[in-house]
């Protein structure tokens, strides 16, 4: 190797470290927690969460600072384009890092954790590790770093799912692990093809093989599908969605609120990067076909999610299928062209808030009624009006009805779809739009069941003596207010987002 080149590589790597400061801070928080618990294992519950919260908030601040130092449209490659720092990365990392404190606060009440998990810092360490994996995934610009981030994320998720000492939790964890192993193997298989064909694992695809021949398009598409299989698994896209209801039912509810937000948003960032930055460089034909493939998958996802949700009366399974359907719509947004990026960023932020709010709501209901069935929540809204109305706001937002941010999000995605149809006239996207609208109509039925039982029926059971947990109550109300604000301040939010990206 050229002497000058080696020196340059090492110096470049050294210069990249300061730009990785937020992630390094999360690692420092993890190491601090571990070292502290080795040296002073007593009084863990006093310092565990403050240290974790401090680490996450410092990471948030440093990420924000790094983002504000970026010039418009500037893309900083780190470690020789293994990672990349650009406005998109900063947006998603900030989103993930702002969800994390909620998750930490939700786990704070000791009563909710199984005795063993509460006494060990492993839970917090795993949560932070998973967050780290998600942040790496958002920054990844190379298949190796994508693989690294995804593996870190899904392994820690599997452990988090099994952190309850119940049988269901263990079963859910094993199911998640087996599915994730299979899809990881598929992804590695695809990556082997990728390397063999292109001679690199960098995300910017060269369309010419090292031997000088052009790679046939169908091979590229099949390879892409294989490579993306683990991402689709984490995102719960239709053929890879089978784990979702079982895992969401068996896992601790805090972990579900994590699973339905952080990893999914991280994979959205990867898909966005691929579909809006890398594939367009390869010419319009390949991009169009990839978008069509994505549209077919999102069509399937919307149909499967909405129809299966109709049949559920277990709240956890209902919301699980509902979240699959929501994800399908987000994918439809990603499949449309470049100028829809702001809409997708807005919808994914709303998606995160809604996911969090849904599961906090379910947790409160579960705590109050000691059950996860719809019938047992009868009349609760009348007794606790604040709880009832916050849950109703969340449900309205999930359906996409007007005074909530969910409406704006869905409206933006449908607008992006409509623009795409007008430009390309593709019948596939027309059917996607129709199915999306029909799905929204179906979701009216299954989502509105919950507010209906909460308010429209008189309570049969004597009022329970259990108190509402104040932290959860406050978080739920805050999120509901946020969803309302997302509707009324949509214009200014979109303007801020637009400025951020341009």
């Amino acid at each position, binding site marked *: 190797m050229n002497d000058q080149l080696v020196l340059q590589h090492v110096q470049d790597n050294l210069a990249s470290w300061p730009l990785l400061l937020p992630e390094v801070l999360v690692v420092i928080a993890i190491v601090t927690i571990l070292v502290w618990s080795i040296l002073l294992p007593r009084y863990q519950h006093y310092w565990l969460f403050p240290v974790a919260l401090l680490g996450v908030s410092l990471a948030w601040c440093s990420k924000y600072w790094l983002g504000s130092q970026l010039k418009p449209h500037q893309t900083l490659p780190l470690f020789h384009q293994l990672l990349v720092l650009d406005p998109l990365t900063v947006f998603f990392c900030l989103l993930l890092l702002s969800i994390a404190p909620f998750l930490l606060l939700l786990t704070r009440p000791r009563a909710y954790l199984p005795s063993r998990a509460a006494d*060990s810092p492993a839970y917090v360490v795993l949560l932070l590790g998973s967050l780290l994996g998600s942040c790496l995934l958002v920054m990844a610009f190379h298949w190796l770093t994508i693989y690294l981030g995804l593996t870190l994320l899904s392994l820690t998720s599997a452990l988090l799912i099994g952190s309850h000492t119940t049988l269901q939790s263990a079963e859910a964890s094993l199911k998640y692990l087996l599915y994730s192993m299979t899809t990881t193997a598929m992804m590695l298989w695809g990556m082997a093809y990728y390397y063999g064909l292109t001679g690199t694992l960098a995300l910017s695809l060269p369309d010419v093989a090292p031997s000088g021949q052009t790679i046939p398009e169908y091979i590229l598409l099949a390879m892409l599908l294989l490579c993306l299989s683990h991402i689709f698994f984490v995102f719960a896209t239709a053929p890879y969605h089978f784990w979702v209801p079982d895992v969401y039912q068996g896992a601790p509810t805090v972990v579900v609120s994590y699973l339905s937000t952080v990893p999914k948003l991280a994979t959205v960032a990867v898909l966005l990067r691929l579909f809006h930055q890398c594939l367009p460089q390869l010419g319009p034909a390949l991009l169009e076909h990839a978008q069509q493939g994505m549209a077919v998958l999102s069509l399937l996802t919307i149909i499967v999610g909405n129809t299966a949700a109709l049949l559920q009366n277990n709240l956890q399974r209902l919301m699980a299928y509902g979240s699959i359907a929501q994800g399908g719509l987000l994918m439809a947004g990603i499949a449309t062209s470049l100028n829809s990026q702001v809409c997708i960023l807005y919808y994914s932020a709303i998606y995160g808030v809604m996911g969090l709010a849904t599961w906090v709501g379910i947790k409160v209901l579960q705590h109050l009624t000691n059950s996860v069935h719809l019938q047992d929540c009868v009349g609760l809204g009348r007794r606790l009006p604040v709880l009832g109305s916050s849950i109703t706001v969340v449900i309205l937002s999930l359906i996409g009805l007007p005074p909530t941010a969910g409406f704006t999000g869905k409206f933006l995605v449908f607008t992006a779809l409509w623009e795409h149809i007008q430009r390309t006239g593709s019948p596939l996207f027309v059917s996607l739009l129709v199915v999306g609208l029909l799905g929204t109509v179906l979701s009216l039925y299954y989502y509105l069941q919950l507010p209906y039982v909460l308010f429209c029926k008189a309570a049969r059971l004597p009022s329970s003596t259990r108190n509402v947990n104040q932290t959860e109550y406050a978080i739920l109300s805050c999120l509901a207010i946020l969803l309302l604000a997302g509707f009324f301040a949509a214009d200014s939010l979109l303007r801020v987002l637009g400025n951020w990206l341009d």
Partner: protein
Amino acid sequence: MMGIEQIAFLEILTFIAGALLLVGLGSLTSALLQPNLPNEAKLCTYESGEVPTGGSWGKFNARFYVIAIIFMLFEAETVLLFPWAMVWANPTLNEATEGLWARYTAMSIVLFIVPLGIGLAYMWRQGHLASTHPCPIPPTFASKVPKAHYEQINHRYASTPRRLQHIQKAK
């Protein structure tokens, strides 16, 4: 003409084929050359010098998985350390960067090993390394029959060797 990537795949294939070939040839040669005189001691499972109890296909206690994971982890570490040492001490790379290379790679490996050590210390502290010692829980059942009665029965039947019991009964 093949690109460098296809050659990389070929190298991996050569490794796999080489491994299979070496193992196969080795076992074949020993099978051809060795005298075949089995006896009980030769055929029994090797248990680090202990007398084995049962076959090697028996069930193992699931709590050994922690030990297995730690073993794998440190094996992976060793696998990484050898090639790292080769690259770290590479004179051409070090001359090209005036020693910066050695410092940078040393930093990387420290960042790799120190967290691993912390993890080990954490497991130790949590008691996962000691988990192979079973801690039996003494039964808390309180019998209504006084202990003396049991001891009486034990004493009566223990005093007679088993093979004489039926003779005693016949009397």
